[in-house]
């Protein structure tokens, strides 16, 4: 056999221009269909759990208890705080981070709301603004430590959790601060109690806030350049940096959003329970993360959707509700919940995968 001729290796391809060839194309339409189907896949688990809930719900006087409007409203109200936190958490997880401090920030914000209104006699607006500012600043500080020193967010926010819980306890003297309404000293403005009310007696205010924030965040994530930067950082940080994405700033902003929404959830919490208690919200971080991940967002960052998170939060709420309505033993509930969560996550796996 001939030895290969080294010069032949580099023979110019330009001499014999190859004919233009159309690159292979997918049949567009069919794929658009499949794609659209799977795009809403984060809803699969939700729809499945919803249908099962209807099927297994107890019926009283011919009425499906699960489907009663009061019950549905309760479900959304019950998940609203976790849901709002999960919205913020979605941003954090999209950039590949995690925020364990949200539950403690919720407690801090609840204490703050109660203290400022009851003890310091501030009005609603200043109180809300100050508390939101505290939450935002707390989140931004954590973000800055993550972005500037480069410590993993898990550690920074785990430390943040402890710090926020400690501060909340010190601020409140360790005890829940009850909120009484009225015009007198040591009383909060009556309007604050609206947070525990409903619109038209049907739609609980926290549920409305959750849905509004969810939709707002969903639009934000679909339309803004900020959102693209978030996805880019989570997907390929180096590419993002090379493209001129202000990586640090976006990172800090994302943790600030998470802190802001956790503080908002804390205000709602205080309003709903008429009390600011420093121990409230413990463990909420895990529920919120579960909602995000069940919603199909990857903990590795870079892929996921806000719609999924909202669906995930509702799924958890329905699950809690239907187990309770059926009087399942609390310990059995734990086991069943574990299994359903895994099953719901498995459903998301139907999606055809890239790579």
């Amino acid at each position, binding site marked *: 056999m001939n030895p290969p001729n080294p010069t032949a290796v580099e023979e110019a391809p330009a001499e014999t221009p190859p004919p233009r060839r159309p690159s292979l194309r997918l049949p567009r339409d069919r794929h658009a269909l499949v794609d659209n189907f799977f795009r809403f896949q984060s809803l699969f688990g939700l729809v499945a759990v919803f249908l099962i809930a209807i099927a297994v719900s107890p019926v009283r006087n011919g009425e499906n208890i699960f489907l009663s409007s009061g019950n549905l409203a*309760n479900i959304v109200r*019950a998940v609203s705080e976790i849901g709002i936190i999960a919205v913020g958490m979605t941003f954090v997880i999209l950039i590949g981070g995690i925020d364990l401090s949200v539950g403690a920030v919720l407690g801090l914000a609840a204490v703050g709301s109660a203290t400022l209104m009851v003890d310091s006699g501030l009005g609603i607006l200043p109180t809300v603004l100050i508390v939101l500012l505290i939450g935002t600043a707390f989140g931004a500080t954590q973000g800055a430590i993550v972005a500037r020193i480069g410590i993993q967010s898990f550690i920074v926010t785990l430390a943040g959790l402890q710090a926020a819980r400690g501060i909340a306890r010190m601020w*409140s003297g360790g*005890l829940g601060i009850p909120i009484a309404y009225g015009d007198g000293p040591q009383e909060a403005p009556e309007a604050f109690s609206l947070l525990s009310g409903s619109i038209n007696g049907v739609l609980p205010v926290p549920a409305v806030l959750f849905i509004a924030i969810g939709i707002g965040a969903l639009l934000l994530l679909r339309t803004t350049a900020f959102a693209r930067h978030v996805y880019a950082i989570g997907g390929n940080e180096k590419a993002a940096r090379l493209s001129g994405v202000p990586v640090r700033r976006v990172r800090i902003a994302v943790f600030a959003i998470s802190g802001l929404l956790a503080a908002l959830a804390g205000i709602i919490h205080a309003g709903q*329970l008429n009390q600011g208690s420093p121990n409230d919200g*413990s463990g909420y971080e895990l529920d919120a993360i579960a909602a995000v991940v069940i919603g199909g967002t990857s903990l590795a960052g870079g892929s996921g959707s806000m719609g999924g998170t909202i669906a995930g939060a509702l799924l958890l709420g329905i699950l809690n509700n239907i187990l*309770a309505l059926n009087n399942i033993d*609390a*310990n059995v509930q734990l086991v069943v919940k574990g299994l359903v969560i895994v099953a719901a996550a498995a459903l998301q796996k139907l999606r055809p995968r890239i790579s």
Partner: protein
Amino acid sequence: KAGDGNGGTDAAAQCGSGKEFLIGMSQANNAEPYRQVMNDDITNAAKDVPGFKVVVSDAAQDNSKQVADVENFISQGINLLIISPNEAKPLTAVVKKAYDQGIPVIVLDRKVEGDAYTAFIGGDNVAIGKAAGEYYAKTLLPQGGKVAEISGLPGSTPAAERAQGFREGIASNPKIEIVATQTAEWLREKGQSVMDAMLKAHPDIDAVYSHNDPMAEGAYLAAKAAGKESAIKFTGIDALPVPSGGIKAVEQGRLQATFQYPTGGREAIDMAKKILVDCQKDVPKTTTLGTTQITKENAAQVYTELGGKQ
């Protein structure tokens, strides 16, 4: 007030013997042995009442979850609510909601605000703390001495009240000094590690006042590891009539004394029976349960009296 007097009327109207009754028990959390025993007391007592069915929910220490639990009970149409609130204020509104819908409400252990409930049954933590303090002042350390305090979860009312009552109780004996206070968050293993450190910082402690029995047991273990278990006296609170409870610990000599914090479970079912089966309208609004001081002398006897299983 609107709810006053109307609460419980619906259910009361349906009362009578030979009927089925669904009772919702909203528990603040199942992780504390005390609350588990309360649940067991309620379910066991309910077994003896024909027609009673009890469902227990676990709020896992979360006020919001407990509100949702009660809401779910209301959706299901329970005939009576027993609730041991995680905290008073946050649950006041939802308890009132149930009460206003005509569901009789028995509040156990921790109160809610206002009076939109049918009855409250509970112990008195300040009194228990005080009893413990007086026991220290008169019996345990009459010559005075150094006491270490292991407290419950910071921010919880019982922890605050048991601390306060104790201080009132020892006030009569100025030679008793509290040299250190550390929290062990109601947990046995934290009691152990906290005691480890306290023994180092204060090797001359005479007694350990623990806000509950498990923490006292943990502290005992730490002292035992340091070879000081006989030099230090330990007391707890709760005295649950279960094998892992404080009564057994006293009987077996690990604890010097413990003070019963009654669950009120049996009493609650008794009262539920009066309301639902006997159609009794005027149950007492408040029942305060007393405490029993348990020492080696009466431990075995009290254990049997309280129905503890061997």
